């Protein structure tokens, strides 16, 4: 299998080879939603690399032999395996394919984001909890290649290995895909919920956003502006504009750095009503595509174009959905008016 797959070639069904994140970005791309372009370093690339590692010294057998309660041994093994992942040569076919894809994606070495893309739902949750890695504003092919290795290496982090051992998951089949994606120099960015995180209301879309890259919002370092709008009507019912003291921006040599917001913009809404409507359109489109409410990460570039960086199915309220109706069915529809006229009696 090809060590590299472009977003436009893959979808959710390809999760086993491109991971959840990669599959989702591919799915969105195929659905015609603006996603910054990119490719996935597939699990096949990882497996070819792992095969090369195993040929030199065992990896999976060592992990499977680990006692998860022995922290000292786990730490030692993690350090050893991660060092090997970082240092040992990658099979030429894999390295070549990744470099070629990068050259095509970034002819002028444009900045990219590198994200691990786990293949199992469990692992994806772990990823969401920050156990796996995201690297922003990565510059140049060498940096890119190193960050891909770091993502692979995250499979051998103490937390990750301990988790697998405690769950008794076999190492066979444990693999990691890595997303390499052009970055948007975001004027503002944030998250969008197509189902209210507050009440589970499916008729409203909640948008949170702040100046600069979305990492500030996702990590909770800045209190974002918040809007609630009618999914169907587009009417904006809540506008909470917060004091956004700082924003995250690209650092000169790569990576990101936090800078203070000038007073003039700190209290200004980071989105216009038109931009909110554009976000709503995209949110509805994604929700329709998946057929269920989504939690979405978005960014606006300097020109105000909306890009999606991530979309995951909403899980909290979906899990709670009871089948109890809003109001008990009445044989005589008129009996419903007793809820107004009956003083709670019927």
């Amino acid at each position, binding site marked *: 299998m090809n060590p590299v797959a472009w977003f436009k070639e893959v979808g959710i069904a390809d999760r086993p080879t491109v991971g959840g994140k990669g599959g989702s970005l591919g799915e969105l791309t195929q659905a015609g939603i603006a996603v910054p372009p990119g490719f996935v370093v597939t699990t096949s690339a990882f497996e070819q690399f792992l095969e090369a590692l195993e040929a030199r010294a065992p990896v999976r057998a060592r992990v499977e032999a680990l006692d998860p309660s022995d922290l000292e041994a786990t730490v030692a093994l993690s350090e050893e395996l991660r060092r090997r992942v970082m240092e040992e040569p990658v099979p030429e076919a894999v390295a070549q394919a990744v470099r070629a894809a990068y050259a095509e994606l970034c002819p002028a070495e444009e900045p990219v984001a590198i994200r691990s893309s786990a293949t199992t739902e469990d692992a994806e949750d772990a990823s969401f909890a920050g156990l796996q890695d995201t690297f922003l504003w990565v510059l140049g092919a060498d940096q890119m290649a190193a960050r891909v290795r770091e993502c692979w290496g995250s499979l051998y982090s103490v937390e990750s290995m301990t988790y697998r051992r405690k769950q008794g998951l076999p190492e066979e089949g444990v693999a990691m895909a890595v997303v390499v994606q052009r970055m948007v120099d975001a004027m503002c960015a944030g998250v969008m919920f197509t189902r209210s995180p507050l009440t589970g209301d499916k008729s*409203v879309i909640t948008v949170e956003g702040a100046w600069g890259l979305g990492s500030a919002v996702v990590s909770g370092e800045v209190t974002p502006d918040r809007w609630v709008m009618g999914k169907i009507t587009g009417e904006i019912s809540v*506008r909470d504009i917060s004091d956004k003291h700082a924003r995250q921006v690209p650092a000169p040599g790569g990576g990101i750095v936090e800078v203070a917001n000038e007073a003039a913009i700190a209290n200004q809404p980071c989105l216009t009503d038109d931009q909110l409507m554009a976000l709503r359109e995209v949110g509805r489109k994604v929700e329709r595509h998946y057929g269920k409410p989504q939690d979405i990460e978005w960014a606006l570039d300097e020109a105000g174009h909306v890009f999606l960086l991530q979309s995951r199915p909403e899980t909290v309220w979906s899990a709670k959905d009871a*089948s109890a109706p*809003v109001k008990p069915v009445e044989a*005589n529809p*008129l009996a419903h008016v*007793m809820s*107004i006229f009956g003083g709670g009696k019927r």
Partner: protein
Amino acid sequence: MTDQKSFPLPSDLKVVPGTEGAQAAYPYYAQFVPEDDQKFWFYNSMHFPEPMHHFDMITAEAAYVALGAFNTRVHVLPTAKGIEHRVINGRVYIGGVAVTDPAEIEERVGEFQQRAFYYYENWERLYDQWKDKMKALIADAQALPKPSLPAYEPLETTHTGKGVASNHALLDIYQKQIEGYHRMWHHHFEFLLLGYGAYMTFFDFCKKAFPEISDQAISRMVAGMEAEIFRPDEEVKRLARRAVELGVDAQFTDNMNIDQVLADLDALGNAGKEWLGELETSRNPWFNVSSGDGFYHYHRSWNDDLSLPFAALPGYIEKIKAGANIERPTEQLVAEREQLVADYRELLETDEDKATYDQLIGLAHRVFPYVEGHKFYCEHWYTNLFFNKIREFGALLAEHGFFGPQGREDDVFHLNQYELESAIIDLMLAWGIGSEPRGPKHWPAVVAERKAAIEEWGKHPTSPALGAVPDVIDDPAIVMLWGITRENLDTWLNEGVENEKELKGFAACSGVVEGTARVVKSVAEIGRIQQGDILVCQVTNPTWSPIFQKIGAAVSDIGGSMSHMAIVAREYGLPAVVGTGTATQRIRDGQRIRVDGGRGVVTLLDEERVLEEA
């Protein structure tokens, strides 16, 4: 209820010194008594935002006679009987009569279901019948002759053996008119509560299914499209279009002299005459719309005073000439409404909920034509005929010197309904006897005293409510008709404490607008409104629609999500906050304010500068 803030007691309210005589002239049954301290009252500034002329009190009284009868004894609402009313310093306070005994509620539930369900089941037939009744009632009122007293009875009286002289006709006309007015209010409440109730049932369902849905979205799903209440404004638009089509549009300018324009059109030849014909078509019946809410004699109809519709003509003409289609795209609005209903339905989780939703929206759509349409027949058309008939009595009495040498026909409204009947009888006696009536010596001083009292009362703001706040407001009539909830009473109590620069009300129509506040306390001030101003008023009503094209946003003291201002604001997409309680008292004319119609918040911006000016 622990020691929380509360409103003053009725007994804390004092009659403004010097107006005791005018206060005493209101009916004894509408005066506060010590026992009233036990009860919660609120100022009905939605219907009665200005001090009441003595005659105009009949608008409260007749309405509460009928509302009470239908709630208490016709439909038999399980938890609420009628509404009591009191008047002090010209301000009408009202309070509901709740049913709290569970056994009585249970009994009333049985009665209610037999009665109300019959109405729901036969709504269209009964509503058609209702329109026939109203039109017949209107025809009766139109057929009442103008009261007049000839020097000698026409010979016809003798030749036909009529056997009744003209002075008797005065009493006959007056009593028939009072009777007709009361009857109109019975018709008014025949459907109203049931209509609102069906709407509220759907409203509550939506709020449960979609906890963050806006009131506005729900209203848009229900709103009728052919409602009579939009028609007067549509007629003005039609006249604007016809003026352009006929090439007579240049006649209509800002601040035009209307009589001159009408004369010029008549002299202009066929095109001008054709437009005047169109005007007549529109006027009958659609200009029988009050420029107020139909509760004050001085809220004249467009037919009595063409300045309101004519003020809108130049703006509409300009838009038409710029190529804009200004008439309501009814089919498109219907399609949008149906789409909205379908889209929300799609979001419901279960088939059971979808079935309930279908039932409730179906019922809401059935009842809504009445909810939106009745006002045109009742508060506008009939009420306008009613006050004009009383005005004819005013003219007759003025002619006979009852209001002094400077007396005007409108002075009649300073008499209460019983006093007016006594004045009529005084005149009947004098005409018959051939003597002088006593009225000319009696009434001028009374009228002067009451005129002064009303002016004085207008200067004294009054408490929005009186007495202890009940734990819950579950009188469906009060919630539906006045939008009074426990939450907004708390807000009224806390006014001026929480944030001096903010007023909270109901979010009637979303959008954020900053602009100059134009505090308009009566319709007479409408001319002061400039393009882009924010209208601040006690209550608006749909007949102000033509000025909605001019303003940037609207704010009112009272009104719920079902108030007419809210309905029309949504129709016009005009940011609006209703039910703020005190906007007209706290916002200064000319002040810059920000209206956030989506949150229901009004922010006062340049308070300081205005205070300096003041």
